[in-house]
């Protein structure tokens, strides 16, 4: 039997390309100054979904929330093998925190009736790792975080090896399920040349300068229309979206500059090592 997979992915600033103007004066990320990329672990989530489809059949739909520019992420997903791409875009969704984001995503995911929802473990811009579990809670799905290996998938039971930091846990659970995927789970497949040649022409209606119905029909006919949903399309209640739906308030942002301080040498003996470990535990560096 085939499984319908929905991958939730995010376009993020490329934090490897950080320059002096990467932060605004108020301490928030200056998104305009950084190139955007596919959040790395979301690519691992996509790969996991594609592998499920390769092995069992079904579909892979990629869902992203963001400005129209996030269509690049959907096209990238299609290059790598996704069947369908949906953008949730709405000015009223701006400034959503993880709670509002997971609410909005939940409204959209429900419409898609998936068997398996896959998210990256966390995004490199916020590093919260909250959206996946929050989304599962809202959907009423069990959640398995930190997937490192999908061990089996039979009928409606999935078995997953998850990384718990100091070891692994193997868990089974019933579908539908939400998985968050780690970088170590797989290596994302490359873009397929012919898919790239085709889907580079895929467009969302809002990317067309003056979209007429004929143009939209042609795109749709060729399978090149990216869907764009508004909050109204997914029946979201405004009170739970955007600024209103976001209880997270940034209290203060501090720029921490790590500098080297004093050091002292320890002898390379058993006693020296024991002393070093003692000091590291005392300073809460380890343990």
């Amino acid at each position: 039997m085939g499984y319908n997979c929905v991958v939730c992915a995010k376009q993020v600033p490329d934090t490897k390309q950080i320059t002096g103007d990467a932060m605004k004066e108020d301490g928030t990320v200056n998104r305009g100054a950084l190139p955007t990329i596919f959040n790395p672990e979301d690519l691992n989530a996509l790969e996991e979904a594609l592998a499920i489809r390769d092995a069992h059949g079904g579909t892979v739909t990629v869902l992203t929330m963001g400005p129209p520019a996030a269509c690049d992420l959907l096209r990238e997903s299609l290059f790598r093998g996704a069947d369908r791409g949906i953008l949730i875009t709405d000015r009223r969704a701006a400034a959503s925190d993880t709670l509002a984001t997971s609410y909005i995503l939940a409204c959209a995911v429900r419409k898609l009736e998936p068997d398996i929802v896959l998210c990256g473990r966390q995004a490199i811009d916020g590093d919260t790792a909250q959206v996946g579990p929050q989304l599962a809670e809202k959907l009423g799905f069990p959640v398995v975080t930190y997937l490192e290996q999908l061990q089996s998938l039979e009928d409606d039971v999935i078995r997953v090896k998850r990384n718990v930091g100091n070891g692994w846990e193997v868990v089974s659970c019933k579908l539908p399920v939400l998985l968050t995927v780690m970088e170590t789970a797989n290596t994302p497949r490359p873009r397929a040349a012919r898919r790239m040649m085709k889907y580079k022409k895929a467009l969302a209606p809002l990317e067309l300068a003056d979209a007429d119905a004929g143009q939209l029909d042609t795109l749709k006919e060729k399978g090149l229309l990216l869907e764009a949903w508004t909050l109204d399309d997914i029946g979201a209640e405004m009170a739970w979206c955007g600024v209103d739906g976001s209880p997270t308030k940034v209290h203060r942002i501090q720029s921490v500059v790590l500098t080297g301080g004093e050091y002292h040498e320890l002898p390379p003996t058993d006693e020296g090592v024991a002393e070093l470990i003692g000091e590291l535990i005392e300073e809460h560096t380890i343990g």
Partner: protein
Amino acid sequence: MANFYTDNEDIQFHFEHMDVAGLAGVMEEGFRFHDEFEFAPTDVEDALDNYRRILESLGELAAEEIAPTAEETDLVGNTLNEDGSVTRAPGIDNALKRLAQAEVMGFTLPYRFGGLNCPQLVYTMSNDIISRADASLMNIYGLQGIAETISAFASEEIKQQYLPPMASGKWTGAMVLTEPDAGSDLQAVKTRAYQDEDGNWFVHGVKRFITNGCGEVLLVLCRTEPEISDGRGLSLLVVERGEKVKVRRLENKLGIHGSPTCEIFFDNAPAKLIGERQRGLITYVMSLMNGARIGIASQAIGIGEAAYRVARDYAHSRKQFDTAIENFPAVRELLVNMSVDLQAARTLTYYSTYYVDQEYGVLREMEFGNVEDKDRRRQLKQKSRKLGRCNKMLTPMSKYYASEMSMRVSNDSMAVLGGSGYMKDYPVERNLRDSRITTIYEGTSQLQVIAAVAGVTSGTAGTFLEMRLDRDWPEDVAPLIGKIREGMDIMAECVEFIKSQPGTSYRDLHARRLVDIAVYLVVASLFCDHAAVSEKKKKVAEYWLQWRMPEIHMLKEQILSGDMAAVKEFEALAGPVPVTE
């Protein structure tokens, strides 16, 4: 993310500067394929954008996934199992899987077989990128010429059978030519092919030094006419891997350890004839070989690129006598010479490939274009002959120059790294070992020189240079053109002298020197083309001529010396064959 295309200014410069758009027009035949294949481009811009995206994507794959496995692949190599199967290094296996997923294993094949219909030039760029990541992977990736040969010469039935799985990366191929007693001299091939009463073909014999001989699709050069002992008695057959094809041995080589080099025994293996009998060597293998020579040239360039980058980086960070070693004139000169040498080889090879694409386009128009107009047909015929002559000279020149460059650059890279370079800690020793084969296989440097020198003595080189120089030059480039013309006069004088000597020995003895002069001038003419649009390239062109012109004068003196001692005084100078007790 690391990317071997976007971090390589020189490849990008060529992509932007060369007439890739013109080649796209030729390949897409008026962009008629889009009606049948939705992914095929609709216009020139669309096609160029495709090429760029494909190279970018490949550049990322090469840098992120392939290059990091090259060291392990070199260490592990291939294993011949007891059942005659070959296990490749894990890095190579993974890379082949990725390349198949990336849909680039039918780079130049027509769309209808699952290919990308790209020009050879773009494929050559991709070979350059792959070889920089792992030279030995290129030996399998770069064997796409096998499929091209099937596409160009085999029957529709054979094409349908073999091309789709090759384009999808499910099957790989091998060109099976060499035998224990037939290396450079392929006319001596002994492997037999014969037909049974029902007309089925079978192949019997031993082949040696076969790159990727464990692949699924083997193009085997066989003697089908036992009564004809030279090249005219040879035909090309396709054999599928199976019980009757036994890999007996894997060679233990100096370099390219990821590439399995097999000895194969064909035990009356079932086969199919490619094209017509007796055209195996003289038409099909020659065509296959020319493509393969460009392939090896691009492999050599990729290796050179890898070696150069290590040296450039090392010279910047390594401090001795309180300063980075890049500040010492001797090291600077090493690095500059490496960089310019590398650019020269790339320019020569890319332009050669460009002319191959041009020739291919003309041939295609003649064959399939339904050209009714007599004048146009005559025009096309003339153009094809002219391009054919050019390519017969430029292809061996590229293979010769690029492979020798690869050795020089890897060697100099080791000079920059010193003791560290000699250790396994840096990839330079691998680059040096890998580069060595490029001057040997697909025809040694000595054979390339013999193939290229005919183009110099017959006047093709002069005509080609005239064609390249025949344009309006910016004022600041004009002095360089003057120097090239001076070099052309010297070349003509040398050709005349060589022609005045009796027999062919003198020509063969001095062929390398004459070809060097021609290569220096051809590269100079191409560099000047770049100098007209780029200040940076102008400096390269000036440096090139500054140092090559004195060499040209030296070569002239040697050629005009009339000295034949190496041939005539061989016994005295080389001494007797050493006898070991």
